[in-house]
């Protein structure tokens, strides 16, 4: 592999992919470092996207392919930044690559190993709703499309190596590797995590099987999701009364998350609309504080949802408890005409979790962090992608909650700032 690049991009979600494509289109040499076995980030996991209701994998795959097929882009998966130091006009970077135990280039992605593997384990791609094997393809349209072996589950029985059509492709002795490179600029696109399910103790989400995360709902709604339908995790029954609880882990000072996560109103409405298409008889209710459908075309989307018969109730959900048959009891304080405390029952409940910075401590480039834990911009009004380190930029949800469009816009904006920065670097200094 080359060891000199113009730009390093950390994280290959939609914002990282956009940044990479724009820089590469301008003729710069780009290295993309992604810690997961495939590029694609959160977007490739979604069912459909608001407000267009495009199928998420249909519109993510072209971007992924473009990154993969671009002559100026190199991708490293299962990798993260071990060290990052400025030296003059350059950055010296050590990248730590975890073993895949499969030869990424040689693997044809045929999936025979996955069929042969005897070890079943829960599937992280489906947020543990479904199952996969110890060796498996990350998902159908992964890039690179190569199997990955999870040593934590592997019993080294040799079943996979026997069926693999490519000689020496699977290697139980694969080792981690540290790779040194130099780059001239870097863009952090490390994305977001969801507020933990158990953040609010009074929601008892850990004990209640039918209280699920919004990402699990996305997977249930995806065309090739784990159950092939909307079934309750506890008993596999069709759900017919579904609740969404908004601001579950946002706008809550007691959690240290005072901010609004911007996307949860929209994704809940989207999921509700998709659900009502699949389960026309189901009763769907969204409990909210304010409906924040502020984006282009978003308020119209909200109006459509109301017209489709989705219930919107302005209420605070104080507690979630178990009811009979795996059902869920919400203690709500409704605001308005029917105001007051009361209890309502549903059989499936989605916590509309907020966005928090990707696992705290994930600050590979040592950038200044804001009070909210996200990478801080030093010029938030007129150059939102500038960070505390000159030559290092940030894009997408790494700097705060955002939807896909806003993440893409920032990806391009960061690319612009980075390429303008590179144009102004003194070339002679770079050479020495």
């Amino acid at each position: 592999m080359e060891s000199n690049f113009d730009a390093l991009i950390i994280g290959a979600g939609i914002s990282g992919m956009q940044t990479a494509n724009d820089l590469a289109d301008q003729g710069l040499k780009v290295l993309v470092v992604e810690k997961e076995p495939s590029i694609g980030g959160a977007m490739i996991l979604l069912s459909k996207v608001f407000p267009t209701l495009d199928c998420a994998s249909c519109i993510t795959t072209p971007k992924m392919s473009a990154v993969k097929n671009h002559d100026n882009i190199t991708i490293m998966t299962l990798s993260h930044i071990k060290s990052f130091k400025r030296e003059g006009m350059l950055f010296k970077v050590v990248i730590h690559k975890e073993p895949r135990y499969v030869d990424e280039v040689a693997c044809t992605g045929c999936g025979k190993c996955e069929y042969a593997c005897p070890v079943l384990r829960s599937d992280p791609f489906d947020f543990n709703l479904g199952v996969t094997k110890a060796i498996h393809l990350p998902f159908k349209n992964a890039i690179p499309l190569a199997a990955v072996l999870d040593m934590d589950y592997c019993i080294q029985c040799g079943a996979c190596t026997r069926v693999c059509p490519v000689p020496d492709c699977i290697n139980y002795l694969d080792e981690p590797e540290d790779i040194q490179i130099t780059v001239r600029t870097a863009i952090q696109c490390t994305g977001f995590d969801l507020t933990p399910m158990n953040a609010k103790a009074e929601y008892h989400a850990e004990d209640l099987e039918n209280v699920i995360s919004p990402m699990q709902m996305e997977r249930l709604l995806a065309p090739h999701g784990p159950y092939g339908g909307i079934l309750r995790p506890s008993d596999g029954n069709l759900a017919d009364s579904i609740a969404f609880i908004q601001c579950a882990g946002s706008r809550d000072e007691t959690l240290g998350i005072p901010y609004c996560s911007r996307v949860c109103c929209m994704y809940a409405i989207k999921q509700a609309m998709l659900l009502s298409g699949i389960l026309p008889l189901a009763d769907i209710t969204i409990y909210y504080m304010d409906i924040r459908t502020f984006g282009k075309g978003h308020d119209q989307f909200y109006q459509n949802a109301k017209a489709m018969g989705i219930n919107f109730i302005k209420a605070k959900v104080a507690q979630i408890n178990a009811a009979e048959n795996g059902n869920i009891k919400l203690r709500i304080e409704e605001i308005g005409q029917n105001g007051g405390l009361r209890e309502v029952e549903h059989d499936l409940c989605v916590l509309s979790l907020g966005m928090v910075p990707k696992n705290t401590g994930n600050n590979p480039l040592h950038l200044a962090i804001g009070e909210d834990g996200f990478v801080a911009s030093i010029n938030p009004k007129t150059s939102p992608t500038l960070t505390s380190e000159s030559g290092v930029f940030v894009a997408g949800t790494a700097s705060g909650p955002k939807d896909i469009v806003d993440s893409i816009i920032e990806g391009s904006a960061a690319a612009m700032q980075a390429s303008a920065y590179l144009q102004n670097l003194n070339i002679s200094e770079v050479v020495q």
Partner: protein
Amino acid sequence: MTKEKKRVGVYICHCGGNISDVVDVEAVRAYIEKLDGVAVARKNMFMCSSDGQKMIEQDLKDGLIDSVVVASCTPKLHQGTFRGALSRAGQNIYLLEQSNIREQVSWTHTHDHAAATNKAKQLVAAAAAKAEMLEPLEPIKVKTVPCGIVIGGGIAGLRAVRDLSKWGMNVVLVEKSPFLGGRTAQLDHVFPTKEKARDLLDKLIKEVIADPKVTIYLNSQVIDGGGSLGDFFVKIEQTFRGCTEKYDLKELEDAIKDLPKDIKNEFDYGLSYRKSIWMPYEGCWPSIPAVDWENFQPEDADKVNGSGFEFQPNKEIIEVRGGSIILATGFDPYQPAQGEYGYGTIPEVITLPQLVRLMADDGPSNGRLEINEHPVRSVAFIHCVGSRQVEGINNPQPDGKVNNYCSRACCTATLQAANELKERYPDLHVFDLYQDIRTYGHGHEEYYQQASKNQILFLRYDPLNPATVRPSNGRETAVSITVKDLLTQGEEMELGVDLVVLSVGMMPRNIEQIIDIFKLPQGADRFLQEVHPKLRPVELAVEGIMLAGTCQGPMDITEATAAASAAAAKSMNILSQEYVYLNPYIARVDEDLCTGTGLCIEECSEVNAIRLENGKAVINKTICNGCGMCVAVCPNDAINIQGWTIPQYKNMVSKMLIPAQELA
């Protein structure tokens, strides 16, 4: 023209069930495989995956096929993907035809699997019929003009200009008004950073004007334009500003002290008056006064004492060329209709932008809160005026539509103003009538929390039953508001206040002329419409023209400048390359058939892309837009649009209607 038929490879996609749940993909494949001209027919779970693309590449490399049919989703989605596969296999990318069996088959005939499968067979057969007649085409190469054109000099336009020039690119900035800065200059300090709006502007403007790569045309209108990706031209009409020397505000006041001050000052949204020679504020750029020709009377000239004025409204026409265009023409605040919530009939009803001017230190009342010469003891804000409108409840705009979108910046701007009022005048009673509080942005929610701490009283109104505003007639307060509050038991409340502030939304500025010239698409909300709302948010359908800021939809400054940088990046993708490539779907003349009737030339009068040379029609390749009007009138069938020829269409039509017994 090669008349030899191509060997066709057909690839049918399951789309992970999207197609195969309805269409029997194997049946389609088996049927297509038997057709004349089809060399291979294959299927895949996701044709767009690397795996699927590799199938195509391999067959091409193995020499099994010459041209490709992919039967999958709409070509809008993956044309680029599949062209990439052809190109990697060393094949001309135009030897691709797509058949849309998802959007137009499996998704629209969900309940009749047999009929859907038959239709898929028919459509794929037609695509194969076209594919066997495809020819390799070469894109038209245009040398890029290394210059970006930015229209609109608000914060978004300035950001885009600065990004391009910092990269080292030439930039032309066209601004309609005599001053830079747009609406941001009218703000005092900005949420959530509390920076002075003008500090933000000054910094950008300083960098922009210091850069020799930038040429600025003020007081300028776009009157014509054309060209295409890589080489656009824009004709600008610049009006002389009437003043040649640099003045500061003080000197200017002296020079024009005898002019009547009777023109409503748009900078203060009509809350103050100005003269016909003016500057919006101290420190504006340029700090050179401008004559407002529309309001300048001939006799005014005699009243001006300073030198350096020239009272001739001369106009100059300038033509500039550039490889890309960025539109940053911004927004207008919604103008409430006469009488809407008492606006225009009750002097104590104003808009939020007006309040922002009133509260600014250099505003019309020097920052004192005074309305109609009364001090203000209580104020009510009404959200979503001119936004989130409901058909049948709100009066439509002149085009018959209501503004059903959210203007997104007004909630935070409202609470910022409300908090500030409360902090300046602790005794003031502040009411806030809203539907939803949308303080979504980074650092915005704090304003909402602060508002509660400041004891601002929130009332939630029903958009189907909005508040009414009347003069109080003799009561203690000037205005009285009736509203049903949904936060309590839906009680009807009567509020008496001294001031009502309407939180008006954003509307796009009127840029009909530019829209006409470049044939730009607008959405139902009248803002300019990007080509793909998810994937290509700053590009227009007209290639090479980009969008920045609030001409696209409501945004705050952070969002507008991010979009501007993104638009600059997209421009740089074009400008940094020596050549761009235009699609080759243009007319081509078969010289053997052409007899020089000239009928095509007549037909092409609007575009003028055809001329006669030595008795044969000749096409101007960069002008021809590929409409094909010439094709229909040629008596010799000598013209066709490359890639879309009549013989290809006929072949498709002839293969489409397969007899039922064959389908079975």
